[in-house]
């Protein structure tokens, strides 16, 4: 009898102990795994799962396993809203990482102050953190940082007149606004402002017009394939005016598409693509190289800055959980805001009450394309 009671008691204790140990730290994510933005979302999802496994292999957070609830918004704003609702109401997660696109983030971010749960966005739009929303953070650098980096370089070169050529989609329009604000603000004259369509296959007319305006340098803002056509047309027209591209083309694909005409083009790029060229003292270098090889081994594909946003999002939340010693949403939020000098993939993050992006123009490195590869510009 006594033995039986003891064994029941022991079983109960074991069960309770297991259920205690199994109580996971629940983190949600809204990612565009499929749909038009899947080229951003897929590496993000891969990275998030990779980091979760890594955390769990090391014993999880606060001695508890990490559970990641990832919903695919299919690059659809409405589905992102539903996913956010589910994470907050049904899954009761401690924090959410996402969404992938700026449109989706802007659509879901107002739910978070009401639910008192922190959101760490992986998309770029400046509006996400400006004005600051106490519950919303962002790990992707803003266009402002990239433009600032280009213009700093142009200043050092002594350029005075700048012409801009932007694509007429969301990315280009956002870039154009920042360019039109910062170019005069940083002491340059804006001599020409041309636009091209995202599906255009010939930009010689725009470039000829720019040529007539005789700028010292041209800044082109777009994502593939438009900038590749611009580069090709520039070479075709025999133009020697220095051409800056945006960080939107910092991928191998651009060099492949633009071919020889990519030679000598300059752009601001995250440290990831030039990790091996960084000095050893650079705080991100070791983890950039580690992430690159880890991702390549696991997914047999190239790393991208977008996967890096996933890395930054989850690692920052993990760090906040650890420093707070709790997975209460409010505690995570407070701890996030106090993170300083945290080396990530996108840059070195220092959040404050007023800055929920935590990055500056140093998140970008100016690179030049030489011999079909990226070279850091001194």
């Amino acid at each position: 009898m006594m033995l039986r009671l003891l064994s029941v008691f022991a079983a109960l204790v074991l069960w309770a102990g297991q259920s205690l140990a199994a109580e996971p730290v629940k983190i949600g994510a809204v990612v565009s795994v499929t749909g038009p933005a899947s080229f951003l979302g897929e590496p993000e999802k891969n990275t998030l799962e990779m980091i979760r496994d890594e955390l769990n292999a090391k014993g999880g957070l606060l001695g508890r396993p990490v559970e990641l609830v990832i919903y695919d918004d299919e690059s659809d704003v409405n589905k992102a809203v539903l996913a956010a609702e589910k994470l907050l109401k049904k899954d009761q997660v401690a924090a959410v990482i996402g969404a992938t696109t700026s449109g989706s983030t802007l659509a879901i971010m107002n739910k978070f102050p009401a639910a008192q749960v922190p959101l760490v966005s992986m998309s770029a739009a400046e509006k996400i953190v400006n004005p600051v929303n106490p519950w919303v953070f962002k790990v992707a650098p803003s266009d402002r940082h990239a433009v600032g980096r280009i213009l700093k370089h142009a200043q050092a070169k002594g350029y005075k007149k700048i012409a801009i050529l932007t694509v007429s989609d969301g990315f280009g329009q956002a870039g154009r606004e920042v360019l039109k604000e910062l170019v005069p603000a940083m002491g340059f004259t804006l001599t020409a402002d041309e636009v091209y369509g995202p599906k255009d296959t010939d930009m010689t007319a725009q470039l000829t017009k720019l040529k007539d305006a005789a700028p010292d340098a041209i800044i082109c803002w777009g994502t593939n394939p438009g900038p590749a056509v611009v580069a090709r047309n520039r070479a075709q027209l025999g133009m020697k005016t220095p051409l800056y591209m945006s960080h939107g083309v910092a991928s191998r694909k651009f060099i492949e598409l633009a071919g020889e005409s990519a030679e000598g083009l300059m752009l601001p790029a995250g440290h990831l693509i030039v990790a091996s060229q960084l000095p050893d003292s650079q705080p991100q270098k070791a983890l950039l190289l580690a992430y690159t090889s880890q991702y390549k081994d696991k997914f047999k594909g190239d790393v991208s800055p977008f996967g890096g946003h996933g890395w930054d999002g989850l690692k920052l939340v993990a760090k906040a959980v650890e420093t707070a010693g709790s997975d209460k949403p409010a505690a995570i939020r407070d701890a996030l805001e106090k993170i300083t000098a945290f080396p990530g993939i996108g840059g070195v993050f220092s959040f404050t009450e007023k800055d929920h992006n935590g990055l500056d123009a140093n998140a970008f490195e100016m690179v030049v394309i030489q011999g079909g590869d990226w070279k850091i510009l001194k």
Partner: protein
Amino acid sequence: MFAGAPQYLISGLTVGATYGLTALGFTMIFNTTGIINFAQGEFVMLGGMLAVVLQKAGAPLPVAIMLAVAVTALVGCLIERGVIRPVGRTAPVNLVIITIGISILLRGAVMLIWGKDTFALPPFSGSAPLAILGAAVQPQSLWVLFITLLLLAALKLFFSRTIHGKAMLACACEQKAAALMGISVDRMAMLSFGLSGFLGAVGGAILTPITLTSYDVGVMLGLKGFAACILGGLGNPFGAAAGGLILGVLESFGAGFVSSAYKDAFAFIVLLALLFVKPTGLFGGPKSDRV
């Protein structure tokens, strides 16, 4: 102000040649079957994409292009035999809707097989620009214009000198009479689909070194090609080619002299204005005769 004019003209002619080649394909099928084939832009896309894929697989450039063109022509024939013919005699509008379905199917298939990336082909003879009248010209632009003219001349010969060409014209004029004279109208319809696949694919393959290609380039090309067709006068192959060139030049001048933000709008505004004045198009006859 007018310093850029020669450059705008050259750029416009190169882009216009694409529209012209797409428009030619439209007229081929319209002339024998009375169908507007909205998968025409996808033929152009297939020509470019297949050439890229074959070239990446290791085929020399000329071989890759010839294979790509042959396969696309075959796809054209298969579409007629497999989809259009079984539907049989029905209102042309039903067939037009079928071609829209085919275009979506082709686009989807290419996206699933080769992905959503953009691809490039190397130019046929280097990329060092030539200076003509103060304008910089890519050697590839000359290839495009030369091959377009060559195709036009070949088509002219085909329709006036060969029995198949004449048979196709006969089907266009009066299908019943042509059938009574022993011409297989079905065969001619298949031939016209094959021919328009051929024309589209050549266009796609020779333009890819300049314009790059991806699974969805056919949408805009189809639209512009159709506009070029209407501009030149529906059913007139030479009008279609000329319509394409005019459309390209208009766009280029519009972007250069007015504003690049409204580039796509100019061509369509001019097209609408023209249709109010001359509904048969620039080179369309006064009657609604289709030849």
